[in-house]
């Protein structure tokens, strides 16, 4: 099953943007919501010129959210890609956790349980194990993971599928100037996701190789993890 009609929150974030490219290329109709109207317009023009895509956009507001939720029945894919890596602690928790949880609770409450709907939510590999750098970011994303796992259970009898996406280190405005481990391009992250459509409920790592790596990292005894931290640049 390919998505026919997708609603993308945070569409100007690099990975969501590339995901929009892949979807538009495949003929999906897109409705994009993000903070900056100028950026959304630029993305929409680009998608129209490249793929002749059917694209709508709206800058983020309560009104836009309300309209999106009202028309929720029209969509078969919802992508939530909110995230910030740097900033005051309150912003980190707010954007990465609170905002997403509030949005999801509304979506799940509105969605028709008889209609197939995939909800892709972007978490991070940073949520898998705490480390000194990105501590607040990782914690917020871990909280999100926890919430998503709960909602997934809640929805198990319905046709709503909740998918947690955990991208590895990716070149994007968010990671500018940072040292990255096995970095990928946002395009590869998006392609790796699209290749696996339709996704079943659960957690997916993207690109795939992060799956086994993070399993090992999670299972590593603490003393060994400390040693690896010392050798890593990140």
């Amino acid at each position, binding site marked *: 099953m390919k998505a026919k009609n997708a609603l993308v929150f945070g569409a100007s974030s*690099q990975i969501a943007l590339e995901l929009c490219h892949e979807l538009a290329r495949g003929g999906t109709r897109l409705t994009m919501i993000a903070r900056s109207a*100028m950026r959304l317009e630029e993305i929409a023009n*680009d998608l129209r*010129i*490249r793929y002749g895509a059917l694209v709508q956009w709206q800058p983020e507001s309560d009104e836009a959210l309300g309209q999106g939720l009202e028309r929720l029945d029209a969509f078969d894919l919802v992508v939530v890609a909110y995230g910030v890596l740097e900033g005051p602690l309150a912003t980190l928790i707010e954007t990465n956790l609170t905002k997403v949880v509030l949005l999801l609770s509304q979506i799940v409450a509105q969605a028709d349980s008889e209609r197939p709907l995939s909800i892709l939510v972007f978490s991070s590999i940073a949520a898998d194990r705490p480390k000194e750098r990105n501590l607040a970011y990782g914690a917020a994303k871990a909280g999100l993971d926890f919430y998503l796992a709960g909602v997934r259970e809640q929805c198990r009898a319905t046709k709503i599928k909740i998918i947690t996406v955990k991208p590895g280190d990716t070149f994007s405005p968010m990671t500018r100037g940072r040292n990255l481990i096995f970095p990928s391009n946002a395009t590869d992250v998006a392609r790796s996701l699209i290749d696996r459509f339709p996704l079943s409920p659960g957690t997916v790592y993207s690109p795939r190789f992060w799956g086994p790596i993070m399993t090992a990292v999670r299972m590593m005894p603490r003393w060994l993890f400390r040693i690896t931290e010392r050798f890593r640049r990140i």
Partner: protein
Amino acid sequence: MIGQSWGRRSRLPQKLLPIYWRDEDWFRDVALPKRLPRGAGRSYGDLCLNTQGILLQTQGLNRFLHFDEERGTITCGAGLTIGEVLAVTMPRGFSFFTCPNSIGITVGGAVAADAHGRNHYSQGSFGNHIESFELVRTHQGSVVCSAEENSELFHATIGGLGLTGVITWVKIRLKPIASDYVEGEKKKVESIHDGIRLLSEWHEKYEYVCLWWDLYSKSRGVLVGANHAARKSVEATGRFYSRLSVPFDFPRFLINRRSMKLFNKAYYLFKRDALFRRPLKNYLFTLDQLKNWNRLFGRHGFMHFHFVIPRRNENQVPEILEQMRADGETPALCIIKRFGEVPARGALSFPIPGIMVATDFKFCGQRTVAAFRRWEKSVIALGGRLYLAKDLVLTPDGFKTSYPNWNSFATFKDPLFSSDLWERLMP
């Protein structure tokens, strides 16, 4: 992060900071160290390096802003590569007036180096077909430049080596084409004098003409000329990017005088005088059929000698080629083209009417550098110049002699921009 140029001579660490959106603020900050915009890093020399400061990578500015199919213009982000643009425009019947010979370079880079192609004779270089662009300068902010508006800055930025500001988008006039195929002719030539004479003659009947020359002999060349096919092709041209790639740095000894001599000889022997029809991308972007071909030269990379001799002295070109042949260096491929009379727009644009020669040389230590210095002297003595986008050896004096407009350019250079090339030419 290590950022290298395509010739891979420098191994000094470079700090790369990508720009994704043209409304971002951070790269306008005066407090940042000296900066240099960088596209795909496909220039061969040190033009795209800035060891002392930071590199603003523009490949995130890869969005099409507007495509006017009626007037045949496209407005696109400076970070889009030539291949990405062609992939969108060719199915709709448009190509560039001037296709640089690589699909990997970015549009912004093509403006900053005023890139040329095989049809310079009739169409001029990349800068000749630009309508306008946006430039982000440190003190003035965003400036839209065109031939009418901010025209001095417009002319300084074309061929301006990225030193006048960050180009964010470019509006380009496109050439309507009936087909994405070319039809042309190959012919062997047996003397360089014949070759240079035929270059002019062939330009009367073909748009894209170049002469491949074997620098290991005195009598082997292949002249290739082609025009856009007039009728629509039924064949599909296939993907733009080749799957064939050089996976790792080849051992350095694989490219030596003997193997290259054999390669050039074989290339000549397998060519026949013939007519051909093939996709434009295979014809113009020959080297792109093999991704990462620069790895063939091994980890120490290669140097590129790319010069033009003005028309009044072009009968001296064979002597320079002879000097290059006799010097015992290891050339790989040598391409000769003719530049036409279309005046270049940029203050530091490379093309002048005459004969252009481009050759890759394996890097063999200081010996190669010394040989380049000798050839550079001969070229400049004949009123010629080296292409700054591929240069590694040009001296400040040679630069000032061969690019007489350097002074007027320097006034438009953004004071907070710099590059390794500029540090070398204007210490």
